[in-house]
């Protein structure tokens, strides 16, 4: 913070009013735990052996490069200072020297091969994903992460992880929290000092799973499974975000890993399993319109509002308004089919892949009665959604076709 104050003072002194104002705007950004610090100049503090090695490799490279840089440019600037015409320096005529030229080819070659040599051990260690204690699959979706604990303690746990920063903060209507943009509703929880293998894949386009403090970054490629690993030496929370351009909300799909002691982890697994069991809703439950619409509002805010907007106005032409939409006000089957399967040739994704029957029913019910919408049939039950998932392909194709 001292540096930051200094910088702000410097900016003000230089008369850079805009710069000072901008620095002032972020004056309250305290350092983020497990994420970046304000005015951070170097890599994040490493908490795995691999990240330690990367940190040291970087420091080593930086020192070697700086030394060469200083040596080379000391020569250049000395020459600029001494060998100038206005000082009466007469040009020499020498050129070509086999000895010098061989030397300045061979010496750099030895240096760069040496640098690569130091890194080789780390390259091989990073690829060794064998003998993991816990294997978690991370699936990239536009735009959230899904996690499945597939092997090890906690096997069977599965959840989605969304950005939890409120839209109001992003739009500047509320004060930003310290973890702004790097906070999620469901954190990945893992035990400390255990080898965690992360399998990555994606549902739609390429994403990338990264946690700087672990020295981990792995592309998540649709149709393929890749893997990486980490073994955190510390408990705590560590943050990263999607690192491969994946469309509109690429900047809004963070990754948060919570590293716990073994005992805490065991407790978390038990609690999480209980929570998942309690969420197993009865798909045959019959809901009233107000209850289902209230739930639908939350589902809508978390899954739909980024494109269709909270006020249902959308961002045409790519993301049409739902307020007054023909599909929302038309036959129920069409909207349910689009919601479950997406609309081909448009950005509308198949929400049926990630939302439960109850959530689909809730969000459909909500949109049919929200804003100025007053659909003739405003309520759909989860059991109807369950039935709709079984519709044959031809029927679905007909239902999701764009209305003429």
């Amino acid at each position: 913070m001292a540096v930051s104050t200094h910088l702000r003072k410097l900016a003000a002194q230089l008369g850079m009013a805009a710069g000072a104002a901008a620095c002032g705007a972020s004056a309250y950004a305290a350092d983020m735990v497990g994420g970046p610090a304000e005015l951070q100049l170097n890599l994040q503090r490493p908490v795995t052996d691999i990240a330690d090695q990367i940190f040291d490799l970087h420091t080593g490279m930086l020192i070697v490069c700086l030394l060469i840089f200083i040596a080379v440019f000391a020569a250049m600037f000395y020459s600029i200072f001494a060998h100038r015409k206005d000082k009466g320096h007469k040009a020499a005529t020498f050129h070509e020297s086999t000895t010098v030229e061989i030397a300045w080819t061979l010496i750099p070659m030895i240096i760069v091969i040496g640098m690569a040599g130091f890194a080789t051990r780390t390259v091989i260690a990073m690829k060794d994903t064998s003998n993991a204690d816990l294997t978690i699959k991370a699936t990239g979706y536009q735009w959230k992460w899904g996690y499945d604990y597939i092997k090890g303690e906690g096997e069977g746990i599965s959840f989605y992880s969304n950005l939890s920063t409120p839209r109001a903060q992003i739009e500047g209507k509320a004060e930003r929290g310290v973890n702004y943009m790097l906070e999620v509703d469901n954190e990945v929880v893992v035990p400390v000092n255990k080898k965690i293998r992360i399998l990555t894949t994606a549902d739609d386009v390429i994403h990338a799973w990264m946690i700087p403090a672990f020295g981990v970054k792995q592309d998540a490629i649709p149709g393929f499974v890749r893997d990486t690993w980490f073994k955190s030496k510390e408990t705590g929370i560590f943050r990263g975000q999607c690192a491969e351009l994946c469309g509109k909300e690429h900047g809004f799909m963070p990754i948060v890993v919570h590293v716990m002691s073994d005992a805490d982890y065991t407790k978390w697994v038990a609690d999480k399993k209980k929570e998942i069991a309690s969420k197993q809703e009865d798909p045959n439950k019959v809901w009233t319109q107000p209850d289902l619409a209230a739930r639908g509002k939350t589902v809508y805010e978390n899954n739909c509002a980024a494109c269709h907007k909270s006020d249902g106005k959308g961002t045409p032409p790519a993301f049409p308004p739902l307020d007054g939409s023909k599909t929302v006000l038309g036959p129920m089957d069409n909207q349910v089919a689009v919601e479950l399967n997406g609309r081909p040739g448009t950005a509308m994704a198949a929400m049926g892949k990630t939302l439960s029957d109850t959530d689909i029913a809730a969000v459909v019910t909500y949109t049919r009665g929200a804003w100025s919408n007053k659909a003739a049939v405003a309520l759909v039950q989860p059991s109807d959604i369950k039935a709709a998932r079984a519709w044959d392909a031809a029927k679905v194709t007909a239902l999701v076709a764009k209305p003429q």
Partner: protein
Amino acid sequence: MSAVLPGHAHDDHADAHGHDDHHHGPPAGFMRWVTTTNHKDIGTLYLWFSFAMFLTGGMLALTIRAELFKPGLQIVNPEFFNQLTTMHGIIMVFGAIMPAFVGFANWQIPLMIGAPDMAFARMNNWSFWLLVPAASLLIISFFVPGGATAAGWTMYAPLSSQMGIGQDLAIFALHIMGASSIMGSINIITTILNMRAPGMTLMKMPMFCWTWLITSYMLIAVMPVLAGAITMTLTDRHFGTSFFNAAGGGDPVMYQHIFWFFGHPEVYIMILPAFGIVSQIIPAFARKPLFGYASMVYATSSIAILSFIVWAHHMFTTGMPAAGQLFFMYATMLIAVPTGVKVFNWIATMWKGSMTFETPMLFAIGFIFVFTMGGFTGLILAVTPIDIQLQDTYYVVAHFHYVLVAGSLFAMFAGVYYWLPKWTGHMYDEFLGKLHFWCSVVFFNLTFFPMHFLGLAGMPRRIPDYAAQFADFNAVASIGAFCFGLSQLIFLAAVIKCVKGGPKAADKPWEGAEGLEWTVPSPAPYHTFETPPQVK
């Protein structure tokens, strides 16, 4: 624009025939530029076109920096932000840098090798005028439904399959620009190999011609590869193929391999002619011959060859086997060797010279100093584990702007100031030139140096909003960017002023300059070297 034409420049009464009775002048007016087959006219067209594209791409960049000035979403929405980053990249690479170097080649190669014109004069006209519809497609794509492509300038599959028709327009634009580049390259190779003045052996040729000869071969080798990659994208999008679609048996990563097999040589396509320009300028202002001419030629060739076997260093995080990572790490590190040889040669050329520091020399020295920083960050990124940490962060953004802005762009500024007296017949305003240099170099570093810190701290590229801890350096970068952008208006003013008038330039305005281009009058007459000069 007509003020730039050599025939007019020394005669404001617009009678191009007036002074040079030994040749036919160009037809007057607009049709002159449409129908011209003259290498100087076409060079001028290329240079003005690329400058217009530079300003267009610059406007997109400033919109990006305005949005990133502070956290939150203020000016543009995320989908438009992605269009901006994508189109900034495409326009700067294919619209600004590449055509600008072809402009230099057109003007200078015939003058430097003592040829009367380019080998295929009509194809030369065609290869320029293809650029205009291509650029129009790119600009129009902002206004079609769904807007311009937002898949990044690399257009990775399968994201590119989700885009609207803006993606198709970009693909067609790149096809056309690729065809233009290939024609330009064939022309340059043929001109250099067949039309050198008697006595000018390859190893006596100016270094700028050497770098362009090698660059041309690289363009012919890789532009069809790019065309293939984007054609497959096109058929995946519209004709039901599955080259890059896993669900149909394809592989999204295959796109990246093909793209970067083009993309990495492309990096050197954008820097080798810059090396050539700097290699002309340093000896001229040090008043001392280039230290190691032959080793410069070999270094350029080595860089070109190595650039074909390092492409997958752009893909370390896709998950290739350790053997692949090690091969591409070692191969990439090796490129530092010939690049280092070049830097050492330039400094050895300056050593014990008799230097003066006019604007071309300032930009050339600025180039060496700042480009070398980009070279060092490239070396750091070549180390696989560090690359995995820094891939797709602002560190990479800093790195390639150090190479492309401080590298390619500064070298082009150096070249423009160096040859403007020959092109216009007037000396440019030295004060404006120096002001342009100092503003550019200071604001360039203000913009891009803090991005190293952002990248190290973990800020990903291509995001419209960021954690508040990244705010300070982003604000500094945005201020730097706006000042850098405004500084380029000084350049425009300096060039226009020089075109319109100024002290008469001598045939050889630089004391230490060498080469055939300085044996013809300033401005260079419309036709030069109709009788080949004899080179000893």
